[in-house]
């Protein structure tokens, strides 16, 4: 008489779920990246698109190869490998030989993610691990920037044979950051805003990156504290320096809109896996990045510091998390506050 109704499902509560799922979040990031990516391709030509594809191919291949066989569809389904490759591609110079871009994708996912145990387990942002690896490995190719040029011209350096140097045959031009750092030449703000400067293929258009960020914020996929904290800190720090010596140090507007600042602050530092969980931790994380960026840019040896700043703060994230545990409801402030 008392029999379980066969069609009824038994599952523990809560029964309701919000609609957002991880793959949806990843897709949202794709959409948010699209405008800046298209702008990059528009400015730097089809070659940029090929570089991007090579990165994604490397990333996806590793993800696929190392995923346990029965879980392959699932591993790829979350869309993070493509995203990693994509983000990596956006940080590369548009004339980078394709084999290097591919290698970057392989390293990004292989060392940045797979060995840690897959999505969610890594400490460092995979795309930035890939980029740091490439920058340390091929320092010249990674700092050879080409000027925006004809859409259909593909630099021949792209097709260098594996292990071989690519000879850049298009017009090279120092990036705004390099010009500022080594020659103290300012780049017009309008160019920085729309992206008509040399630089990594996805980082040049400040405006479109901010639009993407706003979209993500609106979709609640992005912790606004991180970009706001990073950019705010960088602005304050660089403003102080700028007031001390305006000839020597770049102004806050230049600091924010040049180089990978916006790409890093909006899309890389906000990677939830590698940023702290708690609100307070998030602020510490963001301020740390902001300080390190300006420190490295202004006083360090590299024109750009956002990548290193994020990686260093990634390394500190477990510690930040440990020491910014929220105070449990109804408990006295017994520790760490």
């Amino acid at each position: 008489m008392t029999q379980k109704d066969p069609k009824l499902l038994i599952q523990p509560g809560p029964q309701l779920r919000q609609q957002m799922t991880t793959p949806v979040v990843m897709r949202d990031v794709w959409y948010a990246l699209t405008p800046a990516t298209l702008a990059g391709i528009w400015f730097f030509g089809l070659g940029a698109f090929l570089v991007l594809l090579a990165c994604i191919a490397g990333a996806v291949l590793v993800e696929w190869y190392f995923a346990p066989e029965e879980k392959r569809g699932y591993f790829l389904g979350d869309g993070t490998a493509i995203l990693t490759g994509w983000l990596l591609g956006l940080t590369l110079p548009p004339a980078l030989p394709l084999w290097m871009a591919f290698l970057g994708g392989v390293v990004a996912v292989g060392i940045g993610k797979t060995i840690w145990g897959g999505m969610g387990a890594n400490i460092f942002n995979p795309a930035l691990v890939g980029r740091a690896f490439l920058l340390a490995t091929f320092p010249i190719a990674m700092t050879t920037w080409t000027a925006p040029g004809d859409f259909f011209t593909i630099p021949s350096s792209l097709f260098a044979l594996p292990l071989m140097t690519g000879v850049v045959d298009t017009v090279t031009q120092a990036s705004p950051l390099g010009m500022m750092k080594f020659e103290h030449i300012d780049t017009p703000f309008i160019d920085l805003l729309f992206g008509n400067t040399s630089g990594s293929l996805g980082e040049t258009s400040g405006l479109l990156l901010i639009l993407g960020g706003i979209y993500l914020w609106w979709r609640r996929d992005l912790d606004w504290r991180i970009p706001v904290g990073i950019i705010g800190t960088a602005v304050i720090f660089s403003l102080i320096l700028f007031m001390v010596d305006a000839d020597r140090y770049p102004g806050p507007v230049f600091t924010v809109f040049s180089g990978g600042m916006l790409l890093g602050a909006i899309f890389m530092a906000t990677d939830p896996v590698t940023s702290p969980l708690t609100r307070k931790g998030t602020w510490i994380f963001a301020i740390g990045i902001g300080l390190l960026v300006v420190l490295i840019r202004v006083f360090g040896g590299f024109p750009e510091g956002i990548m290193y700043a994020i990686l260093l703060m990634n390394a500190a994230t477990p510690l930040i998390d440990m020491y910014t545990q929220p105070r449990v409801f109804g408990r006295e402030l017994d520790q760490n506050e």
Partner: protein
Amino acid sequence: MGDLGWIFISTLLINNFVLAYFLGLCPFLGVSNKLEVSFRLGLATIFVMVVTALCAWFLNTYVLIHAPYLRLISFIVVIASVVQLIEMAIKKTSPTLFRALGIFLPLITTNCAILGLAIFATNKGYGLWEGLVYALGAGMGFTLAIVLMAGMRQEVEKVNAMPKLIRGFAFNLIISGILSMAFMGFAGLFSSS
């Protein structure tokens, strides 16, 4: 940036003993699984390094100038004995401090970072103050690296998602590699301004 300041920043960040010179890898890879222990080991290392710098300066100035061939052996013997003496003194005077640092002191003495510190400081021709700052930077750099490492390892062990094959030294080395890559960002710090 003054010279002393640069020596400090340089050993702390740019030429970090662990991440750029591969010194002190045994404790760095071996003891970094617990944050608390790592931190205390780091403190003890700072302490021993400063003592080492003092010893090395003393030896260099008063002894080795006459007998350079005794450098290696006197570094080892003198540093080990001085640390041993200090350990006894701490044990007597401050049990709290001894509990915090004590068990690490003899361990650290045989660590290549200590010997390396003495030898590098000598090779660079550092004087007393430079040597002390160098030791402080090196010790703090070691602490920074091992604390970051321990934090990451604790986190990663919690996730428990790593393939079994990669656990242990191979993995720790690769994390160290990435950390070392991140520290490359400090290269050239304050040298251009």
